[in-house]
């Protein structure tokens, strides 16, 4: 487990005078693990190779980041129970950028929430960063999330009463950073994501793309092992979507493990591996075949 206790992204960034594109790339440098550039290019759908990233890292961290085996989840509904997951299995390796696709109701978001520990599986097993979630209490799940999981939502879910900076500082402090360190971290992230000038703005006053970038900054504040994104481009226009996707690609290039739920094939194409879901099950390669 100690393998996943990373101290990432504490590097000072002094590239704020660069252009947006440079800034975005520097963001990746600042945010990602800082373990070399690696090969972050998208791969063909269905690829099941070992992930790209810093070779050293994978040598010292051979475990999977996410292991989902035979998970079932049923929700109560007014008319009849909804069987959201029916034995879904998935493995995500360190440094992978996985896109989970499928039609509405196929169980994508439920799977993502179960991986984040926000939902509990009715049956099956889930492990994140080497920890079996089924054995953890709510408090332990919260601690696991603050150390290992960053989440980005379609509708951002920012704390509307707090400034952009405070949204990020809060996440950093919950992740265990001291006050000053959290502020520095937030400044760095907002700077490299092009939001420093809007640091004191309330989220409601930001554009959709800005809000999603802020949400990503917040998700990365604790330098998580795993970045989960639930339809991160669903509420954005094409420019904003491209911007977010580009950011994910570069994060991945720096070794960030990403699981992204989307029903947009074009967005999914940006991922390293695409996993298709239907009727609560993984249809295309889940990665389990790579397990030792």
């Amino acid at each position, binding site marked *: 487990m100690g393998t996943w206790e990373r101290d990432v992204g504490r590097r000072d960034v002094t590239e704020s005078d660069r252009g947006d594109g440079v800034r975005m790339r520097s963001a990746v440098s600042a945010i990602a693990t800082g373990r070399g550039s690696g090969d972050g290019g998208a791969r063909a759908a269905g690829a099941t190779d070992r992930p790209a990233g810093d070779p050293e890292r994978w040598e010292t961290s051979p475990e999977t980041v996410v292991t989902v085996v035979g998970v079932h989840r049923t929700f109560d509904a007014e008319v009849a129970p909804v069987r959201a997951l029916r034995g879904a299995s998935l493995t995500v390796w360190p440094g992978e950028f996985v896109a989970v696709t499928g039609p*509405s109701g196929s169980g994508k*978001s*439920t799977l993502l*929430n179960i991986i*984040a520990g*926000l*939902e509990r599986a009715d049956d099956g097993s889930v492990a994140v960063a080497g920890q079996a979630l089924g054995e953890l209490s*709510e*408090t332990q799940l*919260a*601690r*696991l*999330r*603050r*150390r290992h*999981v960053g*989440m980005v*939502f*379609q*509708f951002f*879910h*920012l*704390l*509307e*009463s*707090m*400034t952009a*900076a*405070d949204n990020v*500082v*809060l*996440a950093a*402090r*919950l*992740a265990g950073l001291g*006050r000053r360190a*959290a*502020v520095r971290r*937030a400044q760095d992230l907002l700077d490299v994501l092009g939001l420093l000038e*809007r640091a*004191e*703005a*309330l989220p*409601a*006053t930001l554009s959709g793309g800005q809000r999603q970038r802020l949400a990503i900054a*917040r998700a990365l504040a*604790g330098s998580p092992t795993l970045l989960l994104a*639930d*339809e991160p481009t*669903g509420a954005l226009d094409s420019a904003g979507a491209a911007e977010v996707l580009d950011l994910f690609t570069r994060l991945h290039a720096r070794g960030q493990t990403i699981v992204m*739920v989307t029903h947009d094939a074009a967005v999914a194409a940006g991922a390293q591996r695409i996993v298709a879901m239907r009727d609560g099950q993984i249809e295309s390669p889940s990665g389990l075949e790579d397990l030792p």
Partner: protein
Amino acid sequence: MAAPVFGAVRMIALGQLRRRWLSLVALGLLVGLVGAVVGGAAALTRRTGTAPARLERATAVPDLQITVPGGPGLAARAASVVPGLRSVWITAGSAARVENRPGVVYLGMLAGHPVGSEVGVYTPVVVKGRDYDPTAAEAVLDERTARSLGVGVDDVLTLRTLTREDFFSFDTGFGMPHGPRITVRVTGLVRMAGATAQQTPLLVSPAVAQDLAAVGITVMIKLVPAPDAVARADAALARAAAAAGDEQDPQAAEFPILEVNHPATDSDARVGATTRVLLTGLVAFAVVVGVTGLATAAVAFARHHYARVTEQRIEAVLGVTPAGRAAARVLAAVPAAALAGLVAAMGPLLAGRLEPIGPVADLEPHPGYAPNLAIAGITAVAAVGLVLAFAGWSAARAGRGRAAAGAARAAGPVRAGWPRPGPAWVGPAWLWVGARFALTGHRPSSGRRPSVITAMISVAALVAAATVAHGVDRLMRDPNRYGWTADLDLLDARPDIVARLKVDPWIAAVSLVARSTVLAGDNCGATGTADDSPSRRIQAAPAARPGPGCVEVTAYAVHSSTGEQRWTILSGRLGRGPGEVVVGTHAARDLGVEVGDVLDLAPRPGGDHGARVTVVGVGLGPPVGGERLGDNLLLEPGVLEQTQRTAPWWDGLVTAADGVPVSSLVGDLGDEYEVAPRQPPTEVANLGGIGRLPEVLEIVLGGLAAIALVHSVTTSWRRRAGEAGVLRTLGSTPAQTAAASVTAACVTALGAVGVGIPLGLGVGRLVWWEIASATGVGGDVAVPGLLLLALPPVALVIGALAALIPAPRNAWLRPSVHSRSG
């Protein structure tokens, strides 16, 4: 075109009504209940506030009550000179000692007029029992006197009547009365406006009256209402008194030739302070309930329409105008409005069962059910209008909400403004997150504020009520505050009696006090020149009575004193010599003087020299002469002798020794003398008569504040459930989320008391100043320290407990519920 539009509106309205009738009924009920409480309070306020005036009208309280110690001829002459007479009733007054009662009790009596006669003045209303039979040995008794004597309907009173000689020998003593013994049956208890009614509380039938020896004649006069009617009558009577100066019975030297009282004017001053306190309390209660209730209703309507804003969008797509959409929702609210009107009208109708509150209940001329139909109607119409207005406003607001939000966003960056607590501050992040949540709004932004405002207003009203209650309580507990340092008053004291009392081991202090009236101020006559002697001025009638700036006021002088008895000094000091005077609070206001001013006193009738004295203090003394509290002066004996209008009355003010029960001393002295145990002045007693009403108000307002706080905390966090979910997503543990929730509640609670306490203290101070001004007591405010100390921690505890209601749910909330992308 209009018909299809109206048809569409009607269809939308019916749809709203079908799907959401329960919600609309609840909203109508809410507005109706608020209206009922406010309308009920308004009806009670009106009944309480108008009771004194209605009693005065119902009982035809005299504008002038003239007591004539001389014969009926002088009384008739006096009545004949009064201009603008509407009604006049001349009757005989008698006095008797009540037998078969502990202690010495004297009772004043008036010969009643035949039942059914239309005298048009002094017509007490019978509130219990029946009127007397004019041909039987019956009488009716003032209900307050009956209460103090423990007399009820059908009780028989045995009275030993005073002869005229007895009556005029009160100052020297006469032993047992020498008039005949009579028995009368009390057939009814009556209510009469005006303080002077208590001087002659027994109204005997003509059959009884014919056997009584009259000790004086009383003339009751009702004037035709006109500006200065009373002043002109006073002036005419002054001239008559001056003209009749030689007719004074030597026996009655201590009485004025014509003693003129103004019951209508005096009664207003006596009950004014109490009525104002009660009305202020009722109005404050109505305002708090009205404002907070209607704010809650407005928010409820806003939520009602905001929740179904999608329907409006669909209607907009179909071409229904904003006005049409709002009109449809107003139409749908018509049944709710009708319900609200019905429920609201019930408040004033039910409040008709309530008597005026506090001591003002004794001034209600028509006890029993008295619904106020006008207020019921107004309340009903207002409730209907409010429901329809709320419906229209909230529907229109919801309909344009999205556009407004978009416009706000397009307006550019909005910064957080002033530095607010946040996770970057020193300390645990959850602490500042909770504080931030408490200090900033959320969507819809109007949801939380009414509750917080309600809590603030309720706390303020609570503190104000407590401040007033504390002041009244302090006043009642500390007789020194209304000028009494003695325990009892021995009436018609003489130096030999006082000398005996000074050596009585049961007595710690005793003072022999002379009491008379003086004319003080400007235009009262000469203060020292023989050329302008009062006697000449009286003969030259027009200048003999007070002119503008001249006030007739009761004056006291302490002739001998042992032990510690003093006036209560509110500013300045006690007098130290003949040239100094202490002025009562009301007298100071009427005379327009303060410490350091010079006051002229007119010479006594027949005297050559008045006096010019310096005001060295403003304070309060015991108003044993029955004057208003603070409507008196404290002079040196020589100055009083020089300026008194009549021969003085003598009082012995007695203080019991330590360890001696006052009741025992009263009983002991009462066997031999006429004694009056210390009683708060009428205006203070009236204030005390409001009893536990302030405490009830405190409890109600405290409860309202607590409910508002709990509501604010719970609803705030219910609407912040999504944000609580986000916190969990970020890794906040259940304990941290709960801690943030409790912090938010505590900040809200502190905000409510932080604003409410100073606001309440300010309001309480204003109300107390008003009371002090009306009663004449000191205006220093009694701060309810214990309450102020207790409020913050109690509010914190309530807030924290309230936070524990949603905290577990928020702490264990699965954020995915709020974060699903669909």
